[in-house]
Protein backbone atom coordinates (compact mmCIF):
# COMPACT_ATOMS: atom_id res chain seq x y z
CA UNK A 1 0.00 0.00 0.00
CA UNK A 2 0.82 3.68 0.05
CA UNK A 3 2.54 3.61 -3.33
CA UNK A 4 1.18 7.13 -3.70
CA UNK A 5 3.25 9.74 -1.90
CA UNK A 6 1.91 13.09 -0.77
CA UNK A 7 4.63 15.71 -1.05
CA UNK A 8 2.84 18.54 0.72
CA UNK A 9 0.86 18.60 3.97
CA UNK A 10 -1.95 20.29 2.00
CA UNK A 11 -2.71 18.15 -1.04
CA UNK A 12 -5.42 19.77 -3.18
CA UNK A 13 -6.36 18.30 -6.55
CA UNK A 14 -9.00 18.56 -9.23
CA UNK A 15 -9.11 15.38 -11.26
CA UNK A 16 -11.18 14.13 -14.17
CA UNK A 17 -10.46 10.47 -13.39
CA UNK A 18 -11.61 8.31 -10.49
CA UNK A 19 -10.53 8.93 -6.89
CA UNK A 20 -8.66 6.03 -5.32
CA UNK A 21 -9.81 6.56 -1.77
CA UNK A 22 -7.93 3.66 -0.18
CA UNK A 23 -4.66 4.66 -1.78
CA UNK A 24 -5.11 8.32 -0.90
CA UNK A 25 -5.88 7.61 2.74
CA UNK A 26 -3.06 5.09 3.10
CA UNK A 27 -0.64 7.68 1.72
CA UNK A 28 -2.05 10.45 3.93
CA UNK A 29 -1.85 8.23 6.99
CA UNK A 30 1.77 7.36 6.14
CA UNK A 31 2.63 11.05 5.69
CA UNK A 32 0.95 12.08 8.97
CA UNK A 33 3.04 10.17 11.47
CA UNK A 34 2.69 12.86 14.12
CA UNK A 35 -1.11 13.18 14.00
CA UNK A 36 -3.31 11.68 16.71
CA UNK A 37 -6.45 11.67 14.55
CA UNK A 38 -7.23 11.48 10.86
CA UNK A 39 -10.79 12.05 9.68
CA UNK A 40 -11.94 11.52 6.12
CA UNK A 41 -15.16 12.18 4.26
CA UNK A 42 -15.87 10.62 0.89
CA UNK A 43 -18.83 11.94 -1.09
CA UNK A 44 -20.28 9.73 -3.79
CA UNK A 45 -22.90 10.17 -6.50
CA UNK A 46 -26.05 8.75 -4.95
CA UNK A 47 -28.00 6.20 -6.97
CA UNK A 48 -30.96 8.58 -6.85
CA UNK A 49 -33.74 6.93 -8.80
CA UNK A 50 -33.66 8.75 -12.06
CA UNK A 51 -30.11 10.15 -12.15
CA UNK A 52 -27.96 8.57 -14.87
CA UNK A 53 -24.93 10.84 -14.62
CA UNK A 54 -23.57 13.94 -12.93
CA UNK A 55 -21.30 16.51 -14.57
CA UNK A 56 -19.16 19.01 -12.72
CA UNK A 57 -17.81 22.05 -14.53
CA UNK A 58 -15.03 24.15 -13.05
CA UNK A 59 -13.27 27.36 -14.03
CA UNK A 60 -9.59 26.61 -13.84
CA UNK A 61 -8.19 30.03 -12.85
CA UNK A 62 -10.55 30.20 -9.86
CA UNK A 63 -11.61 26.74 -8.74
CA UNK A 64 -8.31 25.18 -7.72
CA UNK A 65 -6.84 28.33 -6.11
CA UNK A 66 -10.14 28.81 -4.27
CA UNK A 67 -10.05 25.30 -2.82
CA UNK A 68 -6.37 25.71 -1.92
CA UNK A 69 -7.18 28.91 -0.04
CA UNK A 70 -10.02 27.12 1.75
CA UNK A 71 -7.72 24.27 2.78
CA UNK A 72 -5.20 26.78 4.07
CA UNK A 73 -7.85 28.56 6.13
CA UNK A 74 -8.99 25.24 7.60
CA UNK A 75 -5.43 24.29 8.46
CA UNK A 76 -4.94 27.46 10.46
CA UNK A 77 -8.36 27.51 12.06
CA UNK A 78 -8.22 23.90 13.30
CA UNK A 79 -4.45 23.51 13.83
CA UNK A 80 -4.25 20.76 11.25
CA UNK A 81 -1.01 18.96 10.61
CA UNK A 82 -2.25 18.23 7.09
CA UNK A 83 -5.23 17.95 4.77
CA UNK A 84 -6.26 16.30 1.53
CA UNK A 85 -8.95 17.82 -0.68
CA UNK A 86 -9.55 15.99 -3.93
CA UNK A 87 -12.50 16.92 -6.13
CA UNK A 88 -13.70 15.20 -9.23
CA UNK A 89 -14.66 17.22 -12.28
CA UNK A 90 -16.20 15.98 -15.51
CA UNK A 91 -18.85 13.31 -15.91
CA UNK A 92 -19.41 10.59 -13.31
CA UNK A 93 -22.05 7.94 -12.68
CA UNK A 94 -23.88 6.86 -9.50
CA UNK A 95 -21.58 5.15 -7.01
CA UNK A 96 -18.50 7.08 -8.14
CA UNK A 97 -16.64 9.34 -5.73
CA UNK A 98 -17.11 13.11 -6.18
CA UNK A 99 -15.03 14.44 -3.33
CA UNK A 100 -12.53 13.21 -0.77
CA UNK A 101 -11.57 15.34 2.20
CA UNK A 102 -9.14 14.15 4.85
CA UNK A 103 -7.80 16.08 7.82
CA UNK A 104 -5.09 15.28 10.34
CA UNK A 105 -4.69 16.88 13.75
CA UNK A 106 -3.32 16.10 17.18
CA UNK A 107 -6.85 15.74 18.57
CA UNK A 108 -9.92 14.23 16.98
CA UNK A 109 -12.28 17.15 17.66
CA UNK A 110 -10.14 19.38 15.44
CA UNK A 111 -9.94 16.76 12.71
CA UNK A 112 -13.70 16.20 12.76
CA UNK A 113 -14.54 19.90 12.78
CA UNK A 114 -12.11 20.66 9.97
CA UNK A 115 -13.51 17.93 7.69
CA UNK A 116 -17.04 19.16 8.39
CA UNK A 117 -15.96 22.77 7.73
CA UNK A 118 -14.24 21.87 4.47
CA UNK A 119 -17.30 20.00 3.20
CA UNK A 120 -19.71 22.81 4.07
CA UNK A 121 -17.50 25.38 2.36
CA UNK A 122 -16.74 23.25 -0.68
CA UNK A 123 -20.44 22.70 -1.29
CA UNK A 124 -21.25 26.38 -1.07
CA UNK A 125 -18.14 28.28 -1.96
CA UNK A 126 -16.12 26.28 -4.48
CA UNK A 127 -16.53 27.42 -8.09
CA UNK A 128 -18.22 24.28 -9.38
CA UNK A 129 -21.39 23.90 -11.37
CA UNK A 130 -23.28 20.62 -11.46
CA UNK A 131 -25.84 19.17 -13.77
CA UNK A 132 -27.60 15.83 -13.70
CA UNK A 133 -28.67 13.74 -16.60
CA UNK A 134 -32.11 12.26 -16.10
CA UNK A 135 -34.32 10.33 -18.48
CA UNK A 136 -35.44 13.61 -20.06
CA UNK A 137 -31.97 15.15 -20.43
CA UNK A 138 -29.58 17.39 -18.49
CA UNK A 139 -30.70 19.61 -15.60
CA UNK A 140 -28.56 22.19 -13.81
CA UNK A 141 -28.55 21.92 -10.03
CA UNK A 142 -29.60 25.16 -8.36
CA UNK A 143 -28.03 26.66 -5.24
CA UNK A 144 -29.71 25.32 -2.09
CA UNK A 145 -30.75 27.35 0.93
CA UNK A 146 -29.53 24.44 3.12
CA UNK A 147 -26.00 25.24 1.99
CA UNK A 148 -26.30 28.76 3.36
CA UNK A 149 -27.52 27.37 6.67
CA UNK A 150 -24.52 25.02 6.67
CA UNK A 151 -22.17 27.94 6.20
CA UNK A 152 -23.81 30.00 8.91
CA UNK A 153 -22.74 27.33 11.46
CA UNK A 154 -19.16 28.57 11.14
CA UNK A 155 -19.78 32.31 11.42
Amino acid sequence: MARLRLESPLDVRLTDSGLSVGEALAAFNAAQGGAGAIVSMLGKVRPDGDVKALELTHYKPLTLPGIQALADTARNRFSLTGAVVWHRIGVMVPGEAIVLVATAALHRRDAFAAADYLMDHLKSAAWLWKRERRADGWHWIEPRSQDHADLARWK
Partner: protein
Amino acid sequence: MAVRVLFLGPLADLAGSAEREIPAPLDWLGLLDAVGPEVAGQLRDERVHIACAGRVLADKTTLTAGDGDEVALLPPVSGG
Protein backbone atom coordinates in the same frame (compact mmCIF):
# COMPACT_ATOMS: atom_id res chain seq x y z
CA MET B 1 -7.40 41.50 -30.57
CA ALA B 2 -10.37 40.84 -28.38
CA VAL B 3 -11.74 39.86 -25.01
CA ARG B 4 -12.58 36.19 -24.49
CA VAL B 5 -15.86 35.85 -22.61
CA LEU B 6 -16.64 32.51 -20.91
CA PHE B 7 -20.15 31.48 -19.93
CA LEU B 8 -19.97 29.07 -16.99
CA GLY B 9 -22.55 26.53 -15.91
CA PRO B 10 -26.15 27.26 -16.93
CA LEU B 11 -25.15 30.57 -18.56
CA ALA B 12 -23.63 28.57 -21.41
CA ASP B 13 -27.07 27.18 -22.22
CA LEU B 14 -28.60 30.66 -22.21
CA ALA B 15 -25.79 32.10 -24.32
CA GLY B 16 -25.90 29.22 -26.77
CA SER B 17 -22.15 28.59 -26.40
CA ALA B 18 -19.50 28.28 -23.72
CA GLU B 19 -17.39 31.21 -24.98
CA ARG B 20 -17.30 34.17 -27.34
CA GLU B 21 -14.80 36.73 -28.52
CA ILE B 22 -15.92 40.33 -28.03
CA PRO B 23 -13.90 43.33 -29.27
CA ALA B 24 -11.78 45.09 -26.64
CA PRO B 25 -12.03 47.24 -24.62
CA LEU B 26 -15.05 45.85 -22.81
CA ASP B 27 -16.83 47.45 -19.86
CA TRP B 28 -19.99 46.54 -17.91
CA LEU B 29 -22.41 48.30 -20.26
CA GLY B 30 -20.62 46.96 -23.31
CA LEU B 31 -20.85 43.46 -21.88
CA LEU B 32 -24.58 43.72 -21.17
CA ASP B 33 -25.09 44.96 -24.69
CA ALA B 34 -22.96 42.23 -26.29
CA VAL B 35 -24.40 39.17 -24.51
CA GLY B 36 -28.03 39.75 -25.38
CA PRO B 37 -31.01 40.45 -23.12
CA GLU B 38 -31.36 36.98 -21.55
CA VAL B 39 -27.78 36.69 -20.30
CA ALA B 40 -27.78 40.40 -19.43
CA GLY B 41 -30.78 39.79 -17.19
CA GLN B 42 -28.84 37.09 -15.37
CA LEU B 43 -25.76 39.29 -15.04
CA ARG B 44 -27.82 41.90 -13.16
CA ASP B 45 -28.65 39.25 -10.50
CA GLU B 46 -26.45 40.03 -7.50
CA ARG B 47 -25.60 36.33 -7.12
CA VAL B 48 -23.90 36.29 -10.51
CA HIS B 49 -20.24 37.29 -10.41
CA ILE B 50 -17.71 38.32 -13.01
CA ALA B 51 -14.02 37.44 -13.04
CA CYS B 52 -11.54 39.33 -15.17
CA ALA B 53 -8.04 38.00 -15.76
CA GLY B 54 -8.54 35.34 -13.09
CA ARG B 55 -9.88 37.61 -10.33
CA VAL B 56 -13.46 37.93 -9.15
CA LEU B 57 -14.57 41.55 -9.24
CA ALA B 58 -15.88 42.93 -5.97
CA ASP B 59 -18.08 45.30 -8.01
CA LYS B 60 -18.79 43.84 -11.41
CA THR B 61 -19.94 47.19 -12.85
CA THR B 62 -16.29 48.31 -12.69
CA LEU B 63 -15.32 45.77 -15.38
CA THR B 64 -12.58 47.05 -17.69
CA ALA B 65 -11.26 44.27 -19.90
CA GLY B 66 -8.52 44.89 -22.44
CA ASP B 67 -7.00 43.02 -25.33
CA GLY B 68 -6.34 39.37 -24.44
CA ASP B 69 -8.18 39.47 -21.14
CA GLU B 70 -10.42 36.57 -20.21
CA VAL B 71 -13.76 37.51 -18.68
CA ALA B 72 -15.68 34.71 -16.92
CA LEU B 73 -19.37 35.02 -16.14
CA LEU B 74 -20.03 33.03 -12.96
CA PRO B 75 -23.56 32.02 -11.99
CA PRO B 76 -24.24 30.81 -8.44
CA VAL B 77 -22.55 27.51 -7.70
CA SER B 78 -24.73 24.43 -7.45
CA GLY B 79 -26.03 23.10 -4.17
CA GLY B 80 -24.78 20.01 -2.40
